[in-house]
């Protein structure tokens, strides 16, 4: 962040994440594909865990300031940061491969979606929600390959753009 260029890109990716929160493709009433983590994945892939986490933080706080999609709850800010950090840890400094994206995605499902988010949700909605974890597990199993494919597609496309290669160098 001592570099204005990276600072500007981080901010811009957070803005894109907030915009993407307006888009979703429903698969069923309870399961929908969302795109807000794509900028986190790109930031993590290109610039590492610190910037990945930063985009997560900014997107969550900025999203709350400008267009709340639900109540602000610091727990989800932590989830967003950790997702970005995981992308950074797994994807940065490595050649792009679908296997790595899958691993990153799997860790996020386990650590963030199942563990942390369940914790936040149970804080918000009571212990009864824990029963719903099994339903959420089902959802995560379906979403894992879809998200892996989506993140791979976008990372591959973005990674190959010479413009961004220049930025990275």
């Amino acid at each position: 962040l001592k570099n204005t260029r990276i600072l500007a890109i981080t901010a811009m990716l957070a803005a894109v994440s907030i915009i993407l929160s307006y888009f979703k493709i429903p698969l069923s009433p309870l399961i929908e594909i969302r795109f807000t983590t794509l900028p986190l994945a790109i930031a993590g892939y290109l610039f590492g865990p610190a910037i990945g986490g930063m985009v997560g933080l900014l997107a969550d706080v900025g999203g709350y300031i400008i267009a709340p999609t639900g109540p602000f709850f610091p727990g989800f800010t932590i989830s967003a940061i950790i997702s970005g950090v995981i992308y950074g840890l797994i994807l940065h400094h490595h050649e792009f491969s679908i296997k790595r994206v899958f691993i990153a995605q799997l860790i996020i499902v386990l650590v963030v979606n199942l563990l942390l988010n369940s914790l936040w949700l149970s804080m918000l909605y009571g212990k009864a929600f824990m029963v719903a974890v099994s339903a959420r597990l089902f959802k995560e199993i379906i979403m894992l390959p879809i998200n892996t494919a989506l993140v791979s597609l976008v990372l591959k496309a973005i990674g190959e753009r010479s413009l961004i290669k220049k930025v990275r160098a």
Partner: protein
Amino acid sequence: VFGQYLPGHSIIHRLDPRLKIASLLLLLIAVFFDAGFIGYGLIGLFVLLALLLSRIPFKRVLKSMKPMIFMVLFLTIFNLFFVRIGHVVYRLGPVPIYSGAIRQTEYIVVRLVLIICLTTMLTSTTKPLDMTLGLERLMKPLRKVGFPVHEVAMMISIALRFIPTLMEETQRIMKAQASRGVDFNEGTFKEKIAAIVSLIIPLFISAFQRAEDLANAMESRNYNPSAKRTRFHQLHWRYYDTIAITLVLCLFFGIWGLSFIL
């Protein structure tokens, strides 16, 4: 058009953003103290008072609860069916409803309503810019542990500045792709994914291009992330801010104390 801020001149609008953000966090924590209905009643009273003072139309608060209605309904049913604490108060056909279930559901709904009211109030009465400034000042101590406070504030303000611009860009890309035969509303699952990809990739490319231009413009105007700089906007702490924070702290510790007693 963007954001939740409702211009106004109420006392709540004029309060220092640092105070408002700190209060929100304190009260969010307070909501999770188990101080029974007395506790929730006190917080509720406080929130109601603040809401009335802020002159935010009630409709606004109701509207912000809309996305939660489905969740609340879902939870209510879930709790009623699966929580088996306390004694059976009612039988819905073959399903017994326990007193504990009702109590828990009530707790959760009250809690959610309070959280929504609190968060909505902050965004409705505070300009995004002031919010950023308030956050920056509040986080200042974190600089000592190496957290880039100034940079974070700068990035939030850049992100907020560019959201409308990127939103316009998004609409333009969608129209351009629609002109090339993409259908964003209908189609099979695969077509929908393809449609969204044809939007997302150009959006990222454009965001990177803008970031590059913006960085050049910032540097050419002598911006240096590691250098000291002054700030045009200053926050002024006034006597009523002191009164307000005292009230919030009293409430916070009151509830905390209460949670031990009960």
